[in-house]
């Protein structure tokens, strides 16, 4: 029965048969071990304890945020508000550069290539990115339009980055990792905050926020932000890549101390971003580079109800609506998403923490194309249904934990998919912890992979031939989901000398990877057609590891370092999407200094190794390695005021980070400077 759900992989069915046995063992163990002694008594008892003992009492967090990523047995990195404040970044992708295992390359002023553990590029498609539990990758191609994913940085509570599949809990597209941006509760942002930022490339960013409480346990905030950012240096033909975007939003949190908490939030944005499209022409000169503004308009509305039924049982119900509008030179996309999620978290006899849930997502898009890019049909609706259950079993209190779970996901075109995982974490002492996991994850075909009909290039005729060759790409309705089996292990340790490190390693096996497969050319009217079709044909393996080290040598000085290593295996892997924009080695080193109470001085250095970018036309572009540095100096002259100066990419005038499949124009990222003033009152 289980084997039949995995029709094409013996390895998977072996795992499938093993899981119930593991489950049975875990339940047996959990049942036979004595339950922990009486949990929390009346508050009075705790108050009478001396501080020494209070410091050893574990907190049973009854209000664990539903959107928090479990840190039990995964490679997790958290970007804190402190990290954000000390960074010179002005965009979300720049912030992600500090996370080991994440590949970030800036294509131009408005386009980014961001992935985790490989398969990068401007069309990277194996990542789940969420803002407050709302999925923001586009089902159009499975990637993220980073130009519209912005926030008031001061509103961010933290960014959780999980490397490796997060599919059991998070499902759709969480193959290579999950990036979860969590904003602060409205309870935490009272008062007024005004910021203004300007520099050579950062023409102007202004923002304002106001937050307050109504006195009966309800808090709210409003914000507005406008960004006007200049472009980067284009080598070859001039190409515009500047951005002007305005966004605003609100958040209301009600009932923080009760058992019922309600969050209602919404954002809307509008503006334009310049993008360059290299478009094939059907007659000489056969290609043209067109820079044009892409019109952006979107919004979302989310509400979440958390109900603490008792100390051991918690429900969460979330509903959101998201609208995305994107008008480009080659297509116009209007997408509506409605998503409903229910989650129940239940603790049983202190040994099991059971989480189960169900989700429903309805997607509709209207995407008229152009002569070179079309989706057939123009309008399409899709429905995704998922069910998941996970049990976190404490085999030895605070020492040995086993997490077993699976997600079952249904989509009309690809049917049911099973995404199970087994994770074990061992914490022999508070300072050390070891973990290992096995996960199966799938990525269902994107809208483009199913429905596209595009002309990628026109090859001019080589005399004596007279007909040009059209390189075309077609979608495939018969595509199956591609899958990943990930084997991971890690180690975390903390020494009393203020040093902590976190090492993660992985071995990934990707099968049925959706790849364009080139057919045989055939004459068609006045041209020759060289067709390619998306098929589940490729298999690749990858392995690697990441290390994050924190060291605080002095009370006022913190050092944070990261290193990532990855390599790929498989036939033709060197010219495949697997290695795309993914350096084998990369490293970061941050130095955060508090020079007295009023001055901060922060430096961030990064090394990005040589990497390859196999273009759609078969050419492999080699991107040279680079080292560069950002710096930031901040001064707080009076309560609530901060003035800062920042410089980015300081070590050279400009450098190339990556190329693109969307345009033949190459952009180099220049050294730039900006100043920022913020006033909170």
């Amino acid at each position, binding site marked *: 029965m289980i084997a039949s759900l995995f029709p094409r992989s013996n390895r998977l069915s072996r795992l499938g048969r093993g899981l119930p046995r593991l489950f049975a063992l875990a339940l047996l163990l959990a049942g036979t071990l004595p339950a922990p002694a009486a949990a929390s008594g009346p508050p009075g008892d705790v*108050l009478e304890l001396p501080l020494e003992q209070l410091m050893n009492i574990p907190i049973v967090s009854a209000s664990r945020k539903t959107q928090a990523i479990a840190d039990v047995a995964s490679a997790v990195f958290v970007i804190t508000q402190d990290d954000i404040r000390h960074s010179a970044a002005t965009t979300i992708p720049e912030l992600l550069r500090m996370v080991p295992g994440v590949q970030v390359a800036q294509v131009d002023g408005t386009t980014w290539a961001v992935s985790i553990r490989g398969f990068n590029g401007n069309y990277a498609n194996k990542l789940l990115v969420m803002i407050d539990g709302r999925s923001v990758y586009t089902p159009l191609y499975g990637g993220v339009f980073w130009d519209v994913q912005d926030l008031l940085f001061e509103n961010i509570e933290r960014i959780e980055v999980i490397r490796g599949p997060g599919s059991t809990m998070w499902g759709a597209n969480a193959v290579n990792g999950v990036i979860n941006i969590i904003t602060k509760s409205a309870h935490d942002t009272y008062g007024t905050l005004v910021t203004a930022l300007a520099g050579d490339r950062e023409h102007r960013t202004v923002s304002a926020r106001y937050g307050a409480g109504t006195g009966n346990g309800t808090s709210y905030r409003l914000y507005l932000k406008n960004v006007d950012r200049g472009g980067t240096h284009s080598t070859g033909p001039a190409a515009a890549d500047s951005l002007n975007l305005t966004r605003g939003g609100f958040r209301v949190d009600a009932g923080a101390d009760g058992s019922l908490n309600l969050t209602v939030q919404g954002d809307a944005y509008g503006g334009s971003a310049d993008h360059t499209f290299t478009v094939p022409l059907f007659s000489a000169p056969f290609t043209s580079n067109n820079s044009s503004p892409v019109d952006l308009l979107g919004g979302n509305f989310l509400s979440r109800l958390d109900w603490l039924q008792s100390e051991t049982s918690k429900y969460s119900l979330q509903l959101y609506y998201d609208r995305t509008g994107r008008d480009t030179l080659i297509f116009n996309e209007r997408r509506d998403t409605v998503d409903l999620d229910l989650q129940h978290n239940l603790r049983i006899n202190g040994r099991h923490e059971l989480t189960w849930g169900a989700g429903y997502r309805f997607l509709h898009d209207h995407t008229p194309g152009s002569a070179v890019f079309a989706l057939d049909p123009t309008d399409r609706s899709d429905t995704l249904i998922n069910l998941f259950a996970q049990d976190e079993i404490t085999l030895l209190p605070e020492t040995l934990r086993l997490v077993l779970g699976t997600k079952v996901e249904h989509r009309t075109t690809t049917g049911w998919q099973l995404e199970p995982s087994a994770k074990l974490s061992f914490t022999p002492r508070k300072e050390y912890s070891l973990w290992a996991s096995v996960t199966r994850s799938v990525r269902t075909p994107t809208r483009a992979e199913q429905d596209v009909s595009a002309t990628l290039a026109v090859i001019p005729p080589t005399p004596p031939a007279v007909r040009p060759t059209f390189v075309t790409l077609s979608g495939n309705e018969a595509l199956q989901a591609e899958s990943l089996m990930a084997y991971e292990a890690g180690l975390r340790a903390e020494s009393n000398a203020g040093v902590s490190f976190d090492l993660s390693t992985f071995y990934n096996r990707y099968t049925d990877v959706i790849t364009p497969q080139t057919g045989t050319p055939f004459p068609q009217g006045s041209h020759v057609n060289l067709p390619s079709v998306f098929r589940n044909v490729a298999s690749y393996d990858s392995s690697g590891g990441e290390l994050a080290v924190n060291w605080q040598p002095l009370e006022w000085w913190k050092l944070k370092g990261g290193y990532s290593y990855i390599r790929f295996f498989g036939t033709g892997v060197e010219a495949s999407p697997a290695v795309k924009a993914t350096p084998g080695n990369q490293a970061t080193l941050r130095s955060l200094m508090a020079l007295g109470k009023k001055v901060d001085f922060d430096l961030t250095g990064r090394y990005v190794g040589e990497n390859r970018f196999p273009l759609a036309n078969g050419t492999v572009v080699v991107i040279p390695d680079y080292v560069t540095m950002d710096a930031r100096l901040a001064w707080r002259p009076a309560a609530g005021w901060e003035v800062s100066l920042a410089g980015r990419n300081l070590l050279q005038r400009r450098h190339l980070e990556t190329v693109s499949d969307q345009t033949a124009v190459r952009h180099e990222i220049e050294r730039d400077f900006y100043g920022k003033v913020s006033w909170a009152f």
Partner: protein
Amino acid sequence: MRSGTLGLTAAALLFLPGAALAGMTSDESTLKAAFIYNFAKFVDWPESAFHGKREFCIGSIGHNPLEKELAALAGKTVNGRSIVYRRFTTPEQAADCNVVFFARSEQARTEEILETLSDRPILTVGDYGEFCGKGGMFALEKKDTRLVFDVNLAQAQRAGLRPHAQLLKLARKIYGKP
């Protein structure tokens, strides 16, 4: 063969002393209130803090999730004075209180509020780690599943408060050590 190995593992696990580690647990708010109560108890207060008052005021500013727990301290004593809990909306209202708890909602306004309270014998506690760096005296922070705290000794001394050595010994970090 495989199930044999599993059986062995199971047997090994069964004989490990699992119950020995089990102990008391608490919810976050109760624990934080207990910490605040302890800070108040283990500080030497100058007489000027009381002006002959019979009560010991613990107040909060901002959106306070510990309201119930701090109110439950009523009846207990610090320095022979019984505790009362008060809620403030402006820093000026807090100027006559003994302990002022800064809720997370006040993060952006920390320095401004501290300025209003400065040079008075008021013990300040912040519900966020950066509080001490901004000139607050005690910062609470959750680290994994435990609660830890930092102390800004210089600020406490400037206000005429003397934290006991045992309090300093337990702090994760001490700012402004002499």
